[in-house]
């Protein structure tokens, strides 16, 4: 048997991983149905999935999964035989799914988890299978606070550098809690009496514990960015298990350097400001699964193309280029155009994937967050087979997760409040997706408490986002949550990749070329609607000329174009030029200057293209508006390198390369007050 995965055929391992990720997704979805719809078919299917993973893992030499998969198989086998399942079995199996997935991701990244990484969890699950009852400790008991030998211990103390804390530990713990059941104990011995309290110092330090099956890389990814602001010590479960005497080790000394368990833990690798990757990021985008009917359709298209090509080929012979022959050439070219368009559509369909890939994560999220918050939540999903471009789909996960989390956390009321308001015990969250026109519309709605417009307006006034005497109707007030500066926790989102704050959600959606709308009725619920393009690979673009080069501005972001009249241009002190357009002053960006291009002769008759950015309207100065056309987006990162201000490139009909302007990034470049009421 091959035991070293490095020597395995990459293809074999890749296939195993791909099938296992699929299997784990089915397993997770099935386990979530298990408590309510237990059927022998369902249990059989879950058993088969675990069995396949166990067998496959053994075959490709991934030994660390064996014991855990075997334990899970034993529990499912017991259920198959009709033995009763104690409360907590499902949660334990779900933890098993997480652990298997984490190990497979490590393998995918070319690393491996220690052979006994899941020993504790496997033993718990085995115990469950043997006794037909769940152990007392599991994720259904979120308030368990004592560290156990099977837990990661993370000691966090303020960094040595004096002064204010730059990174808020609250955000740190919030992201750590996403990895698993987190317990945090604060140490307050350094906290002086209020009379001697220095408001500029951080006196607290913490000991956090996470389940032992959380991969180290996941913890390091999240903690790597604290880089100097805190002293962080990570002690792995094995290191804790050895000297365990029942008493947890003391916290790091309050005044000294952080304690480091000898030889067992290491300081975090310093990051150079690079954002940490999202822990649960999807497996590397190396391949997609394609339904056979799509391949068949593609084959048909190629067949049509071959026929057209041979027809045109026949016309290429000797002989006079008479009217009849020209007509046939013209007919052939028309056919070629139709075939090419159809082929393009077929290829685009290849890239389309059902939105269920994103929706499938939510039953678990809703279940666990509901348990943690003590709320009863029913999730209704429709339209999960709606297809979207793979790229759009991959980028949709974080904003949607944030919106669903918001609904559970802040929308759905606790049971007592719901009953008092005459509502059903359980709140409902509806997730729907459907094609409307050329877009995909995704809606997240809940029947919770809704937003309080008055309170939102008050906060916006306090934060200086609206004038103190501004009068807003309810609808306008609720839209204020999208304003940058309204949310309070954006730093983490920038780093962890998990959207936090509605302005960040909106920006993510707009970066996808989509739109977001919010509709909320106090006491009745909230509905958020996302309108997304089917694909990012081909966009409708406006060609513009700057100097002697052509650029593309995405048509979706253009509001209008105006011929520039010199008297309407003025210079704001200390800021950029602005253009007075009707009742607004629009900041202007001279693209030629920004891109370091020579100003074209006769550049007086220039055009300003007004675009919408996430910080307001922006005027892009160009020399000439040219045609509008669909363009195929080519990645600069893949073919060259990332260039600020450009989102990609395309090849025009004449073979010239045209760059596609990144309107959102340009808006940030000109982060002067972007839209000032005149």
């Amino acid at each position, binding site marked *: 048997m091959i035991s070293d995965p490095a020597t395995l055929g990459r293809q074999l391992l890749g296939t195993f991983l791909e099938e296992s990720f699929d299997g784990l997704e089915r397993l997770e979805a099935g386990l979530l149905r298990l408590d309510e719809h237990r059927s022998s078919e369902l249990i059989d299917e879950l058993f088969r999935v675990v069995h396949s993973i166990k067998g496959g893992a053994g075959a490709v030499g991934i030994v660390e999964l064996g014991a855990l998969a075997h334990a899970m198989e034993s529990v499912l086998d017991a259920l198959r035989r009709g033995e009763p399942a104690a409360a907590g079995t499902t949660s334990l199996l779900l933890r098993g799914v997480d652990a298997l997935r984490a190990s497979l991701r490590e393998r995918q990244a070319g690393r491996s988890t220690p052979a006994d990484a899941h020993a504790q969890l496997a033993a718990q699950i085995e115990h469950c299978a043997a006794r037909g009852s769940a152990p007392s400790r599991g994720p259904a008991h979120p308030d368990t606070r004592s560290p156990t030998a099977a837990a990661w211990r993370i000691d966090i103390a303020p960094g040595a550098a004096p002064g204010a*804390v730059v990174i808020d530990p609250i955000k740190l713990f919030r992201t750590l809690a996403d990895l698993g059941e987190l317990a945090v104990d604060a140490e*307050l011995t350094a906290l002086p009496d209020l009379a001697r309290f220095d408001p500029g110092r951080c006196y*607290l330090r*913490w000991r956090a514990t996470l389940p032992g099956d959380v991969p180290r890389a996941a913890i390091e990814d999240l903690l790597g960015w604290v880089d100097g602001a805190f002293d962080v010590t990570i002690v792995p479960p094995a290191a804790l298990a050895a000297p365990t005497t029942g008493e947890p080790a003391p916290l790091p000394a309050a005044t000294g350097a952080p304690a480091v368990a000898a030889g067992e833990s290491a300081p975090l690798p310093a990051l150079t400001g690079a954002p940490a990757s999202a822990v649960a990021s999807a497996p590397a985008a190396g391949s997609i699964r394609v339904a056979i009917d799509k391949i068949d359709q593609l084959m048909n298209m190629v067949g049509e193309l071959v026929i057209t090509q041979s027809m045109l080929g026949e016309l290429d012979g000797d002989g006079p280029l008479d009217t009849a022959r020209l007509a046939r050439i013209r007919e052939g070219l028309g056919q070629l155009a139709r075939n090419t368009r159809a082929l393009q559509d077929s290829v685009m369909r290849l890239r389309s994937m059902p939105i269920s890939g994103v929706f499938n994560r939510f039953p678990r999220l809703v279940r666990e967050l509901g348990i943690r918050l003590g709320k009863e939540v029913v999730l209704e999903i429709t339209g999960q087979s709606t297809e979207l471009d793979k790229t759009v789909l991959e980028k949709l996960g974080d904003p949607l997760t944030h919106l669903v989390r918001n609904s559970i956390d802040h*929308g759905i009321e606790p049971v007592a409040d719901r009953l008092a308001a005459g509502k059903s015990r359980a709140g409902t969250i509806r997730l729907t997706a459907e094609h409307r026109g050329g877009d995909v519309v995704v809606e997240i709605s809940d029947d919770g408490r809704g937003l309080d417009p008055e309170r939102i307006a008050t906060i916006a006034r306090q934060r200086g986002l609206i004038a103190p005497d501004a009068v807003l109707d309810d609808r306008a007030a609720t839209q204020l949550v999208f304003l940058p500066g309204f949310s309070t926790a954006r730093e983490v989102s920038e780093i962890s990749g998990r959207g936090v704050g509605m302005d960040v959600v909106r920006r993510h959606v707009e970066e996808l070329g989509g739109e977001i709308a919010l509709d909320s009725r106090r006491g009745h619920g909230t509905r958020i609607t996302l309108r997304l393009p089917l694909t990012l690979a081909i966009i409708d673009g406006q060609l513009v000329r700057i100097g002697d080069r052509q650029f593309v501005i995405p048509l979706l972001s253009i509001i209008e174009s105006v011929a520039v009249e010199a008297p309407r241009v003025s210079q704001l002190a200390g800021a950029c030029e602005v253009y007075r357009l009707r009742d607004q002053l629009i900041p202007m960006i001279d693209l030629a200057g920004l891109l370091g291009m020579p100003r074209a002769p006769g550049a007086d008759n220039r055009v300003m293209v007004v675009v919408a950015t996430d910080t307001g309207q922006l005027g892009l100065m160009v020399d000439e508006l040219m045609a509008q056309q669909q363009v195929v987006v080519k990645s600069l990162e893949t073919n060259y390198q990332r260039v600020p201000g450009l989102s990609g490139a395309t090849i025009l009909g004449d073979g010239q390369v045209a760059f596609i302007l990144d309107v959102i990034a340009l808006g940030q470049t000109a982060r002067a007050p972007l839209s000032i009421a005149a």
Partner: protein
Amino acid sequence: MLALVLPTDLDQSVVAELHPRFLEALAEPAITIDGSSVQHADVAGVQLLCALVIAAERRGIPLVWSVVSPALVTAARLLGVEHVVRIAGVRQDGLEWFD
């Protein structure tokens, strides 16, 4: 009895201003805290609150919460000081949509 109303942002930006007010509060026979307005709390604000609660306890000054916001409860819970500031079980009111 003094009623302390905590600000919307219980964070670093206000601790220097709140500190003397908290010290003054310790001169009162009893303290009631209204935390319903807190929309955002950070470690600087929460540790000041811890210092107040502990100081009041040491001086034998009764300190009660009238109401707290979910944002404050979440911040205290995440920082592991829910039991220190004694807000478990206090009536919650407020909006925490944006955090």
